[in-house]
C-alpha cells in the first residue's frame, strides 16, 4: 500500500478513531513519511499503534472543537474519521469541512443509507459492507462460474492461480 509516495511529504494527516482501521492507517502513513496525528477518546487505544509509529497522538473527544484545535486541524490537508459510531463520524466530518475548511475529508460509514447526509458537503465516504460485497463478488467472478461455489476455499485458490 503506497499512500503518500507520489505526494508532497509535508502533508499533514489527522485520523480520528484509533481502532484497527485507524491504527493501521496511522502506522502505514507514518512509515511512508507522512505527518500523522491520531485522536482517540481512550488512550489505551494507542497501544494498537506500532512501536515505530512516528506521529503524534491526542487523547480526547474528537467532536470537541478544543481538541480539534489542539490537533491543529486548520493545518491538516486530510482528515480521516474512522470511529466506530456513524453519527460521530458524520458530525466530525461536517465540523472539519464546514468550520475548519479541511480540504479532503474521508469518513467511514457502516450504514450506507446515511450517505445522503454527506453528499452535498463534499465528504468522501467508504462503506465496509459495500466494499466487502464488491470484493466477494469479484472473487466469485474470478472463478468463472457460480457452480464452483460448493468447492472448498483451497480448491478455489488453486484454480485462480
Amino acid at each position, binding site marked *: 500500500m503506497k499512500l503518500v509516495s507520489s505526494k508532497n511529504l509535508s502533508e499533514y494527516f489527522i485520523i480520528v478513531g484509533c481502532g484497527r482501521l485507524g491504527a493501521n492507517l496511522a502506522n502505514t502513513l507514518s512509515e511512508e513519511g507522512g505527518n500523522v496525528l491520531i485522536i482517540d477518546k481512550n488512550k489505551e487505544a494507542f497501544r494498537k499503534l506500532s512501536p515505530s509509529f512516528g506521529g503524534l497522538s491526542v487523547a480526547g473527544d474528537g467532536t470537541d472543537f478544543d481538541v480539534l484545535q489542539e490537533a491543529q486541524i486548520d493545518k491538516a490537508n486530510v482528515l480521516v474519521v474512522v470511529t466506530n459510531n456513524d*453519527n*460521530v463520524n458524520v*458530525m466530525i466530518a461536517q465540523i472539519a469541512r464546514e*468550520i475548519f475548511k479541511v480540504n479532503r475529508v474521508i469518513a467511514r460509514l457502516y450504514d450506507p*443509507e446515511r450517505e*445522503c447526509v454527506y453528499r452535498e458537503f463534499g465528504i468522501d465516504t467508504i462503506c465496509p459492507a459495500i466494499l466487502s460485497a464488491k470484493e466477494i463478488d469479484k472473487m466469485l467472478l474470478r472463478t468463472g462460474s457460480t457452480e464452483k461455489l460448493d468447492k472448498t476455499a483451497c480448491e478455489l485458490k488453486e484454480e485462480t492461480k
Partner: protein
Amino acid sequence: MKKKVLLVGGRSKSKSLALSLIKRGYQVTAINDIYDDCLKLAEIKKLSVIYGDGSKPFVLEDADAAAYDIVIALTSKDEDNLVVCELCKKRFHIKKTVALVSDPKKTEFFYKMGIDSVVCAISAVTSIIEQQAFVDEMANIVPIGEGRIQIAEVPITGSAPVVGKKIWEIDLPKEVIIGCILRSNTAMIPRGDTRILAGDVLVLISSSGQEIAAVKGLTGR
C-alpha cells in the same frame, strides 16, 4: 388538520414535552431506543410510541417521518441529534427541525448545518441562574429569538434615578428600548415625552447582554 410532531429520544424531556403538546392539540409520536423508556412513554394517552434508533433512516421510514410538520431531537448525544435532524430535513423534507445540543460551542455549527432551531440546555440554564441573581431588580426576563433579544420587566421604585424624568431625558444603552409602561391597571405605549413615575413597571426590549446595564441605569442599583 392537527399538526404532527415527532419527538426523538430523551426520557423525561420527551415525556413532559409530549404531555404539553398533546394538551395543546398536537398529534405527537415519540421514537425511543430504550425499551423501558418506551414503556413509560406508552402510559401517556394519545401518544404513539415507536421503539428504535431514530438516527437510522429505516426507523424514520417506519414512522412515516415525511408526514410530520416538526421534528424535535432530544437525545443526550449531540451527534445523534444532528443526524436525526439532517436526515429528517434532507431525506424526509420535514419543514421544521429542532435539536437539543449539550455543547454550547456547537450551537452555531448546528445552525450552519441547516437545523431550524437549536436549543442549548446548558446556556438556557446558565442564563436562568444569572437572571435569578438579579431577581431584586427584575421581575422577569423572557429570552426570544434564540436568546438574542430579551424582554424584561423592571419595577421602578421611588428611589430610582429616573423617577419624574421624561423618556428622552434618560440615557439608555443603544440597543434598549422601553416598549411599554405598566401603570396601576393600565398598560401604555410610551412616547419620548412620557414621564416615568414611581411604582411604574417598565417593559424593556433589549439585545442580549445590554439588559443588565440598562436595568442598573434605570433603577440606580
